[in-house]
């Protein structure tokens, strides 16, 4: 991807990925899921997970799995709130950029679609 992914967007993507797994998910799977959406280096995810854990957006717990402990992550209440905030910000941001790209004449068609998407988030 030619567009860089900032820290906030990365946090939002990871939160979204983890929130989809109600039973929690683990490092390797999170990385694979995130890489399904954006192209990032594998070493980027650990600091993000640690940061989200420190901010109490994610909680970690160990589950025994084949004779070893596998660390699972799941989203917290704070994390859900934060993710909602990120989603709203993203809708706002992406709508503006889309409008700018598509120009005046197509804005009205697009507005309808994004309007309903915004409602769904709320």
């Amino acid at each position, binding site marked *: 991807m030619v567009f860089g992914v900032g820290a906030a967007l990365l946090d939002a993507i990871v939160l979204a990925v983890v929130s989809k797994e109600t039973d929690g998910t*683990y*490092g*390797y799977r999170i990385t694979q899921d995130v890489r399904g959406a954006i192209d990032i280096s594998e070493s980027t995810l650990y600091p993000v997970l*640690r940061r989200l854990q420190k901010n109490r957006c994610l909680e970690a717990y160990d589950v025994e799995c084949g004779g070893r402990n596998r*660390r699972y992550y799941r989203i917290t209440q704070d994390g859900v709130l934060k993710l909602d905030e990120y989603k709203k910000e993203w809708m706002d941001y992406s709508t503006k950029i889309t409008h700018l790209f598509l120009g005046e004449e197509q804005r009205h068609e697009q507005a309808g679609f994004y309007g309903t998407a915004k409602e769904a988030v709320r």
Partner: protein
Amino acid sequence: MSRQDFMEQLKRLLDDIPSNERQDALNYYENYFEDAGPENEAKIIEELESPEKVAASIKKDLFGENYEAYEFAKKQREQEKIKENNAKVQRNILIVVLLIVASPIWIGLVGGLFGVFVGLLGAILGIGAALIACVAVFLVVGCILIGIGLTKSLFGFPAIGLIVMGIGILMLTLGILGVLALCWIIGKFIPWMILGLVNLCRSLFQKGRKKEAYR
């Protein structure tokens, strides 16, 4: 690079962060390799690029803005250490070279000191021999004078005989005193001197040994 090498290098690179953070990070990557399976090991190592890069990503997050300053300070400290070591090696080489270059001087000095020591020993021995000879002369001459005095006083010259005998007794007494003094010197003074020398040598050697122990 194998997974084990990768993890070992990562552990070494993280030895300057708090141990709980290090353990968490190492656990994460151990789990990561386990979950990916052995068939993906090489691919993951390639995509992680290097333990240095992984360690940097962890530390950047831990130290935040201070990371660059921290790494810079660490590098500087390491360079200073290397410089210090180099200086130490250079100094040692210099000392050895100086010792070799100055060898005529210190060999001469040591030789000179040894000469002085041998000379002193010779002088002491000479003085000792002279003293023994003196004492022996006093004893012998004393005995002879007593003999002469005795014969003189028995055969007509009692006055001269008594004087000669008196001188003889005096010399004999001095000789006996000399023998006593020599006995004292040989019995007390020489053992004391030898003991002193032995102690001196021992303390010199022990100093050398202590220095060895410090290294």
